[in-house]
């Protein structure tokens, strides 16, 4: 019987960056969201100029994936087509939607920005992560009223059982009005039930709650 385990998890909230429950970076409590995201980026010591073109939610998701792989590779890229990315949140892309809507209010200077518009879809953050890590497998973005571990565990487990993926990155990512909240977990098959944290609804909920403020 195939079992799945949570290999590692990362989380970012308004206070800190966590990796497997351990604090990796604590934000200055007076810093603004953009500053926090930039501090987290600088602390990684990597160069990825595209980061600065992203909206807050994509930056947040990108950082969460980056912290998860600790500067290494998230997955063996030769297997990139077998890596799934299943994300979720409540607000979809509402933070950027509101910003884009603002740009439509002035009829005299009607200049909607394609660079902003492109981020008005929930799954753009997934696209940014796929580009960074060469992930070419299954994609799905689920919207729920709150963190829905059951929906995520059920769907990801199905993907493994169907042979639609060999590894998976699953999580929650939401940046809205200056509040940051993400939790990403990398999921893989295991034959040793005792090794690590099993990927089930209870454990995924536990991880999500652990990473709460």
């Amino acid at each position, binding site marked *: 019987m195939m079992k799945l385990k949570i290999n590692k998890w990362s989380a970012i909230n308004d206070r800190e960056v966590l990796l497997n429950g351990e604090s990796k970076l604590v934000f200055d409590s007076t810093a603004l969201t953009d500053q926090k995201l930039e501090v987290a980026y600088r602390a990684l010591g990597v160069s990825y100029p595209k980061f600065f073109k992203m909206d807050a939610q994509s930056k947040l998701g990108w950082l969460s994936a980056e912290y998860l792989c600790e500067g290494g590779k998230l997955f063996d890229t030769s297997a990139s087509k077998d890596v799934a990315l299943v994300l979720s949140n409540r607000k979809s892309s509402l933070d950027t939607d*509101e910003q884009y*809507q603002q740009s*439509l209010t002035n009829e005299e200077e009607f200049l909607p920005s394609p660079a902003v518009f492109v981020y008005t879809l929930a799954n753009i953050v997934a696209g940014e992560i*796929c580009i960074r890590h060469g*992930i070419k497998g299954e*994609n*799905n973005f689920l919207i729920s009223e709150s963190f829905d571990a059951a929906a995520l565990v059920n769907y990801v487990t199905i993907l493994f059982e*169907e042979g639609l993926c060999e590894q998976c990155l699953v999580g929650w990512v939401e940046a809205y009005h200056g509040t940051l909240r993400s939790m990403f977990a990398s999921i893989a098959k295991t034959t040793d039930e005792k090794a690590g944290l099993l990927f089930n609804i209870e454990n995924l909920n536990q991880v999500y709650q652990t990473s709460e403020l």
Partner: protein
Amino acid sequence: MQKPVYIVNDHILSAIGTSTESNWENVLKEKSGISLIDPLFPSDQPIYGSQLKEYEKVNPKATKLENMFLYSLQELLKKTKIKSSNERLMLFVSTTKGNIDLLQDKSSNATDRIHLAAMAAFIQQELGLKHSPIVISNACISGVLAIQTAALYIKHGFIDHAIVTGGDLFSRFTLSGFYSFKALSAGICKPFDKTRDGINLGEGIGSVLLSNDPAVAQGAYAIEVTGYGSSNDANHISGPSRDGSGLSLAVQKALKHTDVKTIDMINAHGTATLYNDNMESLAFQQLGMSDVPLNSLKGYYGHTLGAAGVLEVIISIRSMLNNTIVKSLGYEEPGTEGKVNVAKTFIKKDIRTVLKTASGFGGCNSALILKKG
């Protein structure tokens, strides 16, 4: 023991009809829902799109999009023995922007339903469905992906029946965005044609009922969903991959249990942008499908975003039931790097197996295989 999953009934609400039957009749008459519309913003080009006209507004508390969803879902439920209160039934909602018009309309008393899950919960409650719906928002592949997700939920025994409904509005928000990308056609779109110059946006709802037991569901038909897969190009967030390799990956997964030689028809995404259609042509060529009759339905409906995948699956099912490949409206001359066999006329042919694909922003692709028993 995993049971096969079938699509057993459907409903379409669009600019060319308030039932699947009227939609199919109008498609056969080559009637397009796309027309010149009043500009929603200062524009240096005429704007064409596909907007809903008449349909019965079900609920005074509902927003425009919610009324559209409710209308379509009630019409679908009328056609099945399965009660909305069935414990083994679940709703899957596909949408890219949901009630996006609420961002502009601050006077609405439904402002919380700008949240897609709140909108879906409202629909669930109005219909008296037992379970919280699953909401999928994955750009232009949402509809196809929602059918995949629902089919997998049934196959793996979480539920026995599913309603998948996809919908989006023709909105100033989305229209201006595609305008800013210079992606809008100056006329009615021409998928895969040499002179194609961009997309038209459209609005509508497509709803399907899936079940592992067509008899219980009192299905109008039983079209099996036998293959599925999605992928990411890992290349660019707003443009398709140049070579079609991402879409090929999704199709290859969908073809796991199907010989590519048995595909009778492809219903492509075919948005009529230069890059999308070219990318698709290269993918189908790579896959050895250059001779398979192919169409895009965007010339009839425009791009209906979250509705597109579901709505286009429904028309493809009509094609299978009537053994008629729908003419790819707007296509005259080949104009893609990859060789594809675009349907220039309606083609009578026994259609047993169909490939449906979609691709979207964020580099995502998806594919489904539908089979007639």
